[in-house]
């Protein structure tokens, strides 16, 4: 049913709309959400578009209900998504953890705004980068994509769906107010060039005795859906391969190791970075999301002044591309980490860096300009 999808071609479109259209192309047919600035355009656009493509939209009573409805729909086999911002993302954390524990694919879009609490609803922030990884209690490995353009709002939404289907877990698209509200060019390639991943379903018939919905022989077990006849038990409790709860350290060891290792073992396959002017760079700006946009310019300006600057952009924050950052740091003298928060991603960078790491903490409400980042590059180059 591709006839009602946004056709391949070039557009000048808003980031949030690009995200919604990408979700539809990725196969999303269920959206549950609650209005919140600056993500509401995704909810509104989905309410308009989903019925046209044979999908379902519902506006729920809060974000807790939204994420749970998304997980319910996904367990019935439908690719599902929700979109929110800071306060709503906080409310969703328990549900995200349930999705991790039950290995339920879905995409959660968090359009970051200024925080903490209600913060600055209409202005930019990057204060949720650690919450995106550690937000729900207990151990799991988050997969988090961070777009820096309208095009990436599209591309990374599709990748987020693919990763969620491949690794059977919620995946987060961590946008921000500027990228989401910005209008910019979007190129949609021919559909056959867009890679779409669908979750694996069990290949054995439901009648086989002792079917194991979380079969340990698989790194990512095929997903038995509601109504297929496998009579699954799915629980947020620590469970065995059969899905049954257990209160033993032995089962807990298997269960949490399984949850984290399916991502850890594939981290190099999942993580993505962009390398910019890194040749011979002494000073490397480690950046992500909207903060990368002034950084490109700052690095170019620094180079024109004779400073050997470069930039490494994290497209996936999590899994954190530690080996790449480490390698870059081995050749650099200083890493500069500008972020629109009081210093968050600087910590994993420091953990692996072989050189000096300097943060540029910028309060939410505005994007640092190229001049500000350039000043930082200049000051550490001396």
């Amino acid at each position, binding site marked *: 049913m591709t006839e009602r999808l946004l056709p391949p071609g070039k557009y000048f479109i808003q980031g949030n709309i690009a995200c919604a259209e990408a979700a539809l192309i990725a196969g999303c*047919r269920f959206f549950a959400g609650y209005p919140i600035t600056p993500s509401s355009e995704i909810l509104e656009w989905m309410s308009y578009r989903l019925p046209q493509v044979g999908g*379902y939209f519902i506006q729920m009573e809060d974000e807790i209900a939204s994420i749970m409805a998304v997980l319910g729909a996904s367990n019935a086999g439908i690719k599902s998504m929700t979109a929110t911002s800071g306060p709503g993302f906080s409310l969703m954390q328990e549900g995200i953890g349930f999705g991790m524990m039950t290995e339920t694919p879905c995409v959660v879009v968090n359009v970051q705004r200024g925080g903490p609490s209600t913060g600055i609803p209409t202005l930019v922030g990057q204060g949720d980068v650690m919450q995106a990884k550690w937000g729900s209690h207990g151990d799991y490995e988050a997969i988090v994509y961070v777009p820096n353009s309208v095009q990436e709002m599209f591309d990374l939404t599709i990748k987020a769906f693919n990763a969620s289907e491949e690794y059977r877990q919620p995946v987060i698209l961590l946008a921000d107010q500027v990228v989401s509200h910005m209008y910019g060019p979007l190129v949609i390639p021919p559909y056959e060039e867009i890679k779409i991943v669908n979750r694996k379903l069990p290949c054995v018939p439901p009648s086989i005795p002792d079917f194991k919905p979380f079969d340990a022989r698989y790194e990512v077990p095929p997903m038995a859906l509601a109504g297929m006849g496998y009579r699954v038990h799915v629980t947020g409790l620590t469970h065995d391969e059969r899905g049954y709860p257990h209160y033993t350290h032995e089962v807990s060891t298997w269960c949490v190791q399984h949850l984290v290792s399916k991502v850890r073992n594939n981290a190099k396959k999942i993580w993505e970075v962009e390398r910019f002017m890194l040749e011979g760079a002494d000073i490397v700006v480690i950046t992500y999301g909207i903060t990368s946009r002034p950084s490109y310019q700052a690095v170019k300006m620094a180079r024109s002044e004779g400073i050997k600057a470069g930039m490494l952009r994290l497209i996936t924050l999590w899994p954190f591309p530690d080996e790449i950052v480490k390698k870059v740091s081995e050749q650099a003298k200083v890493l500069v980490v500008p972020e629109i928060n009081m210093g968050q991603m600087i910590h994993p960078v420091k953990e692996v860096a072989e050189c000096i790491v300097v943060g540029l903490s910028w309060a939410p409400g505005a994007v640092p300009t190229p001049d500000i980042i350039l000043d930082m590059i200049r000051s550490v180059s001396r």
Partner: protein
Amino acid sequence: MPKEILAKKHPDDDLIRVDRMPHIWCPGCGIGIVMKCYIKAIKESGIPPERHVVVSGIGCSSRLPGYVNIDSYHTTHGRAIPFAIGMNIVKPELEITVIAGDGDLITIGGNHFIHAIRRNHDINVVLINNFIYGMTGGQHGATTPIGSKTSSAPYGTIDNPFNIPLLAASLGAPFVARWTTFHVRQLTDAMLKAMKVNGLAFIEVLSPCPTQYGKDNSFPTGLDMMRYFKKMCVINHEADLRTVDIDLKSGKPIIIGNFIHKEKPSYNDMERKLIEGIMKEMKSHG
């Protein structure tokens, strides 16, 4: 020897996860009775077990799905209803029953409860009301009768409990019933009716919890409360729901029955109509 009188197979074994026995429920607990009624209703519903789905939240009552051998989802505390709604919207052919406790469905999950009834999703909601938080050690909730002694109200509760049938009816639920674990046949029958209702069917089941509620509130065994149900329950399908609040101390009768049973378009009906309209419009515009 006890072995000699034990049957090898229970007639409900095909719908029970026998490999999960023994269950966690205390002697005298009523949740097992609700499970038996639900299994009987599945069998008599004419809907194959593969199409039945049971969803719960957290708590003693919410362990019930884990023992029923159908697709069963044990979700987070208070959130069974929205999970069931998501599943129902995309797969309306599934017969989804939410079974959870009073603390789960009406206390922490109260917001989802009222909105689900308001929108009239086509799911069944069975609320097992044992007047207490059992699993966490006997703290009171939004259904605990006023004046009850609980582990977090050692001097007695001072807050009023919900009259849940009145609440559900006020929101327009097409089916509202209350039974107790003493009324096994009527409860099964109500579940069967609920499965046929188009929209949200709500059943409150009063159930004994001797361990956490009864011990400090004059019902030291499960049988004590079952006797109380037998003695105090009055079946009145036509009851004025403003009068059905529960007081376990003053000698007030407990009104039970199938209070409301009516036709009403479900959320799914409204959505189907909406989508048909959109499709028609799009076709006429090419």
